[in-house]
């Protein structure tokens, strides 16, 4: 019985820590100044991409990653990281549209900024929506 | 072919939708296929021709035609035939309501 209690307690604590870790990333993103954190000139390409990867992983887990003109943010993160490693000045993103492969060319620095800002903004919006969503509901916060 | 035909107030109206790719010359060239479209449509009630048209690539895919002719033909059959550029033709009939 005591053992069962112990197991339950540790499991409970484990769940709590996991939960708070997740909440941490969301809170971090919500508080982050995107322009500062994703600035490639100030922080360097590698750091910005690492930030992007970390936050985007969270966005993907929550199901809220951005997809812009056929390119998902995971695509931005992955392809730009590869291009940065190969010291390329330009990133070529491939995506499928109606079965055909299409290409989007971006400067590596810009692509990194994009990957980072997309990742953080997705999380920021989720946090913001918690307090703003009711304002659009007729019969609730929406006044007309 | 989907056919709907109804007689009302001495006039019979028929609506026909043919199944055909109606590929124009321009589209055929782009896709590397052969152009083919309906070139002729004729509708008959009994021996009487009630509608006849020469058509061309200006009609869209699965063309929809609507026409009316005089007379109360309730209970009779309307028979519609189309032929296309490749020489193929199709005939379908439906009872007029």
């Amino acid at each position: 019985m005591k053992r069962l209690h112990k197991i339950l307690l540790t499991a409970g604590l484990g769940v709590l820590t996991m939960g708070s870790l997740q909440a941490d990333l969301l809170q971090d993103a919500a508080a982050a100044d995107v322009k500062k954190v994703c600035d490639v000139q100030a922080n360097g390409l590698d750091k910005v991409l690492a930030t992007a990867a970390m936050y985007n992983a969270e966005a993907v887990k929550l199901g809220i990653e951005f997809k812009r003109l056929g390119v998902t943010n995971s695509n931005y993160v992955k392809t730009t990281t590869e291009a940065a490693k190969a010291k390329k000045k330009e990133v070529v993103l491939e995506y499928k549209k109606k079965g055909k492969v299409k290409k989007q060319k971006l400067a590596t620095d810009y692509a990194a900024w994009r990957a980072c800002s997309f990742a953080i903004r997705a999380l920021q919006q989720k946090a913001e929506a918690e307090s703003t969503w009711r304002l659009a509901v007729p019969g609730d916060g929406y006044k007309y | 072919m989907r056919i709907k035909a109804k007689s009302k107030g001495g006039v019979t109206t028929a609506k026909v939708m043919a199944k055909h790719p109606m590929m124009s010359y321009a589209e055929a060239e782009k896709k590397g296929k052969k152009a083919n479209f309906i070139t002729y449509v004729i509708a008959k009630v009994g021996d009487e021709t009630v509608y006849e048209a020469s058509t061309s690539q200006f009609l869209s895919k699965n063309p929809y035609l609507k026409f009316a002719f005089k007379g109360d033909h309730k209970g009779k059959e309307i028979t519609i035939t189309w032929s296309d550029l490749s020489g193929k033709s199709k005939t379908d009939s439906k009872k007029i309501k």
Partner: protein
Amino acid sequence: MLLKVVKISALVAITACTLNAGSFNTQAEKDRQALVTYMEAKFKDADKNRAFFPYSSDDELKNNFPKNIKEKDFALGSYAFNSRGKSQYDDIKEMPPYEDAIDAGEELYGKKFANGKSFKECFPKTDIAGNYPYFDDKKAAVVTLTAAINDCLVANGEKKWNEKKGKLAKLQAYFSFQSQEAGKKLDIKIDSQAAADAYERGKKEYYSQRGYLKLSCATCHVQGAGQRVRAEYMSPLLGQVTHFPVFRLKWNSLGTLERRMNGCNKDQGENPHKPKSKWMKELLYFMAYMSNGMAVDGPDIRK
């Protein structure tokens, strides 16, 4: 005396319980009524209520918007308030392009699986389109018609179908048409706390902004209903799900509600949520309740 008190309190307790049992949809009903009130107020006289239509032209407000649009009229979507579009829609309805799909759906319904059974076992009645989505208390999850069809296939050893188009859409067209012919209405039930919670989650997702363009579903289909994106009118949430599966002229083919929802996600700038995800199912549950009581009028044509 004591016995009498006990009997009365027992009776009161039982009555309270039964009354409560029907109250899980109270909030949902309030929400739905509020939506109807809003839509009817907004479209009562578009020309007079210009505050709702800041970017619309004089001409369209005066000449294109009919007046006094009522709850059931909204089932036509944007055609309810776009007279010019409506006349084009009426023309196409003379010989709708989805009729073949209904026939194909009927065939699929009766076609036997490898194990000798068919959809008839899973769906003994065909006029059931208005009963979905529903909340399955045992599974503790929302069941959409799309999911139910695929569950039937899997249970009978068949492969799942594409949830957005093709065979599944055709079978849905048949169910929808049968429901329409039988005069069925949307009959969405919220019968438990878990169901009410699922509804609330769906509602929250509907009104939360998302994606690169930071749009919520409501931005376009509640506040934006009746406004235009370039030349296209945005349809209202009220009556939005009654006419699916839809033959969309843009696709030139039939698609399920999930197919359209994916398109909406992309329009918002977010990676589309999968049709079988909890997110999608709960959102559709909410959306369906918003049109609860309206007639099933699928399949239909839209741009």
